[in-house]
């Protein structure tokens, strides 16, 4: 342990951020999206408080359109680690029948993700929410702070961000303000995979290649995860060897054809990849600078 590798350095810095949240907040929560970044963040939280447990619950905002394997994995993970899991769904959106097939990705994401998240934060009065976003994901994220303050209405004002000097985080909130904290800010996709491999962190099996039923739509491979997916004329369901680089709502998440069934396979495949992980996400392509706009409105 005498050499501080890049990933070990990032690990220590993230643990430091998670501990700082625990020490300075009243009612923190960790957002858990079930994906690989969440898996890493949760693993870091387990390390941060060892031999104790994280002092905060984990929150999953369930749009009801996640892959079924994700939900199974989520419940297993909470049980395995002995953590308090809170699941929140926008009941109003559910009653209105909001879904990606009927309303499109923009409305679905806004109502079932962004609105639902705000509801959950308000309902349980969380003052600080830890999230697994990384700066390398998207360019408006590159300028986001580790401690990102939101108004009482959950809005993000990129022009009013506090400078973060050294690792001295200013955690003082104004009345009504909440904070989103991103312990993985400085990790890259490569770091995440390398760390999962190094630490042997369990991840959702959907990241590994297997024969799965898919439909090709708008140049993307969409997995038919349940019978809610309408099949258009001319489309046909095929079994293909596929896996996912990123996980979200199944109708909005594109698969890639792959034979990578182990972590070293995935990593080797990543080395030769020519597209970024977010390309598989419909949600980012809705409009130019779309992430920045969504974030201002309260999206994580």
């Amino acid at each position, binding site marked *: *342990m*005498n*050499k*501080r*590798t*890049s990933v070990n*350095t*990032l*690990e*220590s*810095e993230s*643990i*430091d951020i998670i*501990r*700082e949240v625990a*020490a300075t907040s009243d009612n923190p929560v960790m957002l858990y999206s079930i994906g690989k970044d969440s898996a890493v963040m949760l693993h870091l939280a*387990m*390390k*941060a*408080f060892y*031999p*104790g*447990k994280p002092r905060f619950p984990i929150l999953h905002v369930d749009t009801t359109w996640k892959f079924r394997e994700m939900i199974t994995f989520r419940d297993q993970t909470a049980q395995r680690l002995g953590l308090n899991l809170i699941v929140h769904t926008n009941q109003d959106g559910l009653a209105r029948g909001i879904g990606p097939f009927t309303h499109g990705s923009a409305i679905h994401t806004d109502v079932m993700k962004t609105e639902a998240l705000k509801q959950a934060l308000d309902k349980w009065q969380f003052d600080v929410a830890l999230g697994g976003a990384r*700066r*390398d994901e998207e*360019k*408006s994220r*590159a*300028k986001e702070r580790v401690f990102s303050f939101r108004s009482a209405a959950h809005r993000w004002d*990129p022009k009013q961000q*506090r*400078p*973060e*000097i*050294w*690792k*001295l985080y*200013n955690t*003082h909130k*104004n009345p009504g303000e909440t904070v989103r904290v991103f312990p993985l800010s*400085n990790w*890259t996709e*490569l*770091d995440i995979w*390398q760390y999962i*491999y*190094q630490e042997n962190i369990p991840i959702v099996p959907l990241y590994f290649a297997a024969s799965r039923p898919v439909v090709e739509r708008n140049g993307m491979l969409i997995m038919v995860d349940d019978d809610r997916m309408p099949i258009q004329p001319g489309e046909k369901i095929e079994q293909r060897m596929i896996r996912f680089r990123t996980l979200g709502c199944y109708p909005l998440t594109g698969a890639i054809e792959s034979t990578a069934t182990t*972590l*070293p396979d995935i*990593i080797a495949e*990543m*080395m*030769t990849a*020519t*597209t*970024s992980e*977010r*390309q598989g996400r419909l949600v980012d392509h809705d409009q130019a*600078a779309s992430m*920045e706009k969504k974030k201002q409105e309260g999206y994580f």
Partner: protein
Amino acid sequence: MSVALAEQGAFAPSAQDKTLLRFITCGSVDDGKSTLIGRLLHDSKSLFEDQLATLRADSLRSIASDQEIDFSLLLDGLAAEREQKITIDVAYRFFATARRSFIVADTPGHEQYTRNMVTGASTASLAIVLVDARKGVLTQTRRHAYLASLLGIRHLVLAVNKMDAVEWRQARFAEIVQAFRAFAEDLNLQDITAIPLSALLGANVTSPAVQMPWYAGPSLLTHLEEVPIESQSLRQEPFRMSVQWVNRPNADFRGFSGTIAAGTVRPGEWVRVLPSGRQTHVARIVTYDGDLAEAIAGQAVTLTFADEIDCSRGDMVAAANAAPEIADKFQATLVWMVEAPLRPGRSYWLKIGRKTVVCTVTLLKHRVDVNNLAEQQTTLLQLNEIGVCHISLDQAIPFDPYVENRETGGFILIDRVSHATAAAGLLHFALRRSQNLHWQAVDVDRTVRAAAKEQRPALVWFTGLSGAGKSTIANLVEKRLHALGRHTYLLDGDNVRHGLNRDLGFTDADRVENIRRVAEVGRLMVDAGLIVLASLISPFRADRAAARALLNEGEFFEVFVDTNLSIAEQRDPKGLYRKARSGALRNFTGIDSPYEVPESPELRVDTSLTSAEDAAEQVIAALRAAGIIW
């Protein structure tokens, strides 16, 4: 990530021993900074096809671009920045080679963004200062080099860009390097590496430039891969860790979690907890991956101690044989980061390590002109200005000078109302070693006690007829002093007669004794460091002179609260004049006992002409003029 990189072994999943280098790029868009970073990302294959496609599409929309790909669009992340073609905020970029991972803090170069550059530099080990080969060393080049050195960056790369525009001439390069080195001599930089390059054409960025056979040094990327990283030297420093979190999952375990700021620690080593000064030795270094035999700077760990000693968040655990100094008054450099200017005297929260204390800037020595390092006199510090000042904390803290350790010498100031991060600060040295009774016995005398309260103690003596307004004014003055953060006590003539002087009546002898006792108590309180307000009729000059004689020169401040007897009698708040006139009260000053008017009081206020509020203001102004408060 690319095939080429995979072949180089940039990611061997089992044998990853890459280190991390954080660096900052300084320069304006005109210098080709964004192009340089874009080129580094592009040539190290850190851009994906879809990102490049977006970039190509954006480049077509960009009017300023005559290149196929406008890399600046890649870096300016916010919509406002892309619209205005300026960089407002610090952006962090990531790339990796076979040997190292890199985090680039890309910061805007103009003077009005000094705050952003300081933020980016605070975590960087290396700075790339860009110079346009056609323009040479400019004012802003000096500013960038100064800020980098101020923030403790020891490795500087002078990237002389746009060499293609000066026909790749060696003489031009040498001229710029010489000019820069002449200026940089005064800066605290460990090494300066000058590299001629063309970001636009990719010459000397990631591969050697064929156009400059006269240059034998490394390309920029090769240099970034090979330069030794600062943090390695932090391991040689004495051990320091600020306690972040006390880990108490159950009654059997009590650990102290934190990130090691400097040095190494091993079980069995003696440590001192500061500021208390208590010593113990480290029992275990606990981590999720098992106990460690050694932990080094940068690691987040949990320590347990052999003894149950008091230790909480914000305390520093340090090597017992090389513990840091403890002090509460410092000379420091501040970089001001908010619109509301710094005014000396206002108090802020100061966060250093994991500790937050109250801080007052007591003196602004000078402002530093970031363009020529000249010291300028000033009374306030504006946004993006840098100043050297004296600060005073409400409690002593352990520290190292910033030049020795960024983590134990760097701090932020937080506005107590808006909660904004108002300044970044660098501790230089203690102005006065704080008295720490664990190490050395200090004679605690009146000077030390007064210094602890940061004030000049004094006895302010209000004399005058009953009903003149002494108590009212003294009360108002005390409120004002309290609001100014002064430590005060009010001795009221009526009140002391209920306790201390309960045994005294109103005979001449008793009146003398009454005043003597109040003066003695006042003297003791002045000795304790307080500003004491005494409100007594005290009609006789001799008694007041005796009180004055108990105190040092300048510590007795006589306020004559003057008014017409008729007005006082008209006010008669306690009904005493009426009783005296009726004969029910004997020896009453002004009626059947004389009041001897002070001959040379420090201040006379006439309450027949001014209100109590105005009189109190006059007292405050006079105390200020006398140097008792400031």
